[in-house]
């Protein structure tokens, strides 16, 4: 009997060991990131300061956590969630509300994660049943936004006098907690995606849905697992974001969805599924923030920064796509 692992190995498109192309494909992003950091440190005053590197890490952490958690959805062949912003806002509001009611930020964090995972399971059930993930997540995002707007009447939600800020400001070696959570989250996601059965099932489902089904892998169960991972990331990110600012409102985080998708794409995860890694999504998020920061320190106008970061993302995504095609021939 053929094991799931061996089938996954066959259908997960990986180039031959030792190939130069594979080396380039695997290490393009880390090398590029290193090049950007070195070039920026040399050419940009104040870039290599501790305060600036910390600012880059802080700004990467929230987007990075969501990008890492969404990678499983993309690898499983279910594209992206387009309800990221409203779901994160909901998680943040629940975090603040429950923290305010119970007096405990940890209780708020738990409630935010439970709710986000529940919403993830619901979406996973629908998408796993064969409905279009783009339409499903977009619709769920709209429903959530509407409900939040109705429930809050557009008001700013806070935790009242309860101290929730420590979740975002507690630091070790002057690096705040969200950065450590981001690193830990990435490590756990990498392990689960690359070294567990469910991770391999997710890869196989994205690489070839029919084969996965014939191998006894349940597309619905596998998709639900991917959405559960995503739900955990959303809950954590929403709580961290709300604790960072001590407040949340329905219209917050307007650009978050695109930031997360850009990070996943720059990380080289295949939109069609089957190929990708949470660590590369994390590096993608870091690269985007570092590029924006370098341009900011050079005094470029906001318009130019957005234009250039967008342009670099397009070039990177195309280059990685071409490299992948070449490496799998």
């Amino acid at each position: 009997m053929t094991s799931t692992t061996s089938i996954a190995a066959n259908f997960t498109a990986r180039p031959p060991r030792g190939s130069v192309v594979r080396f380039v494909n695997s290490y393009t992003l880390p090398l590029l990131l290193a090049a950007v950091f070195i070039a920026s440190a040399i050419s940009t005053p104040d870039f290599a300061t501790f305060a600036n590197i910390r600012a880059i890490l802080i700004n990467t952490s929230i987007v990075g956590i969501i990008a890492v958690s969404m990678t499983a959805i993309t690898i499983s062949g279910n594209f992206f969630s387009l309800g990221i912003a409203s779901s994160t806002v909901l998680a943040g509001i629940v975090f603040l509300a429950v923290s305010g009611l119970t007096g405990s930020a940890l209780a708020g964090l738990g409630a935010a994660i439970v709710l986000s995972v529940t919403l993830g399971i619901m979406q996973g059930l629908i998408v796993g049943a064969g409905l279009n993930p783009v339409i499903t997540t977009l619709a769920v995002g709209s429903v959530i936004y509407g409900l939040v707007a109705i429930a809050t009447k557009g008001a700013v939600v806070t935790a009242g006098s309860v101290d929730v800020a420590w979740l975002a400001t507690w630091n070790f070696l002057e690096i705040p907690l969200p950065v450590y959570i981001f690193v830990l989250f990435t490590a756990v996601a990498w392990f689960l995606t690359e070294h567990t059965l469910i991770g391999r099932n997710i890869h196989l489902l994205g690489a070839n849905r029919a084969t996965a089904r014939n191998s006894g892998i349940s597309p619905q169960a596998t998709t639900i697992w991917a959405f559960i991972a995503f739900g955990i990331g959303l809950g954590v990110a929403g709580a961290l974001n709300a604790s960072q600012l001590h407040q949340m409102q329905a219209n917050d985080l307007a650009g978050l969805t695109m930031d997360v998708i850009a990070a996943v794409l720059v990380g080289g995860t295949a939109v069609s599924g089957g190929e990708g890694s949470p660590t590369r999504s994390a590096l993608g998020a870091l690269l985007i923030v570092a590029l924006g920061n370098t341009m900011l320190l050079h005094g470029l106008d906001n318009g130019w920064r957005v234009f250039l970061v967008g342009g670099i993302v397009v070039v990177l995504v195309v280059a990685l796509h071409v490299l992948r095609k070449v490496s799998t021939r």
Partner: protein
Amino acid sequence: MHFSYARAWRKIAVAVLATGLLTSTAACSTSSSAAPGAPAASQGKGTGTTDGGGALLKVFMPSTSNVYLAAASQSIKDEAKALNYTVNIVENNWDQTEQDQQVQEWLATGERAAAVLMWPAGAAAATNSIRLLSAQAPVIQFNNLVTPEASKYVTAYAGVSDTGIGKEAGANALAAVEKLKAEGVKFHGPGGKPNVVEIRFTAGYAAGDDREKAFAEATPGAFNMLAVEPTPTVDAQGGFKAASQVIPRFLGQGIDIVYAHSNDVANGVVQALEQNGLKPGKDVILITGTSSGDMTNLRSGKIWSATLQSPVIEGALVVRTAAQYIATGQVQSGDVTIESSATKPELKVEAPHTATYMMNPQVTAENNASFDIWGLSFDKLMGK
């Protein structure tokens, strides 16, 4: 022969239809000019009373999913009820295209209004909708200043003045500097000038342009401006995102003042300052525009001062302006800023000004609890 007759009949039929269409169009035009809903605009004379007699005020504005708009919307309804007007509000999701469509759909219904109250989703692109509306009823614009292109179609403006807010913020910043100088504080800029970082509204947002310009004009040469950084979004999240990257850049030079365009944006700046080891309210003075968002940082003194921008006053003001125009059928040329009075002024039958601006007093940790404008506390003024 058969074909010739058919063609002839067709031509006659087309001519009859065209004549009918022209006649009905003319009839429509005639009836619209005599529309009961727009007597003041079409006749150039007013009803002589601020009592609306149940007439309709049609309102086009962005979504009330924002707390400011929700409060402004409620205030419009309350004021209209007090003046015996009927209100119908059409919301868009901050989208001028959607608002344009809503305007055209409403015009197609043939409903008549005594006045249209218009908060353009994007003032620069709203001229055509305002032009179309102005053919049906007087248009009273609010919240977004009238563009030169739209000025001939807008009867009057009432509401916030972004220029006024920028000026007030500049005056507050100067006062803060004088106070600190008297206490012996030394500033970090060249010649002892305070180093200032401005966290402004999103690039291209007209309100941000006005506030930036007015602040600079109100503080000529007083500050050493280190950077003017736009936020990606006009909320605390956007403020944090912009400030958390721009503050480390100037830590070495010393930052004395941060001017943020709203209290909401400033809440994000507070977090960014603290994460960089600075104490807002002590190491850095945070001066802000609009008094929106969570007030915890303002009340604790981390935010030095904000500038009152009350949605309740703005909502009432736009309805009052419409009622005055309908009552008189006239507009006084020139701008006026209403006074901060403890009691709500009685509405007189007199022509409104071309532009009537809200008052923008300073809000601080010390005075926010004792605010009393139109009999309302600070929280009530902010619609809470």
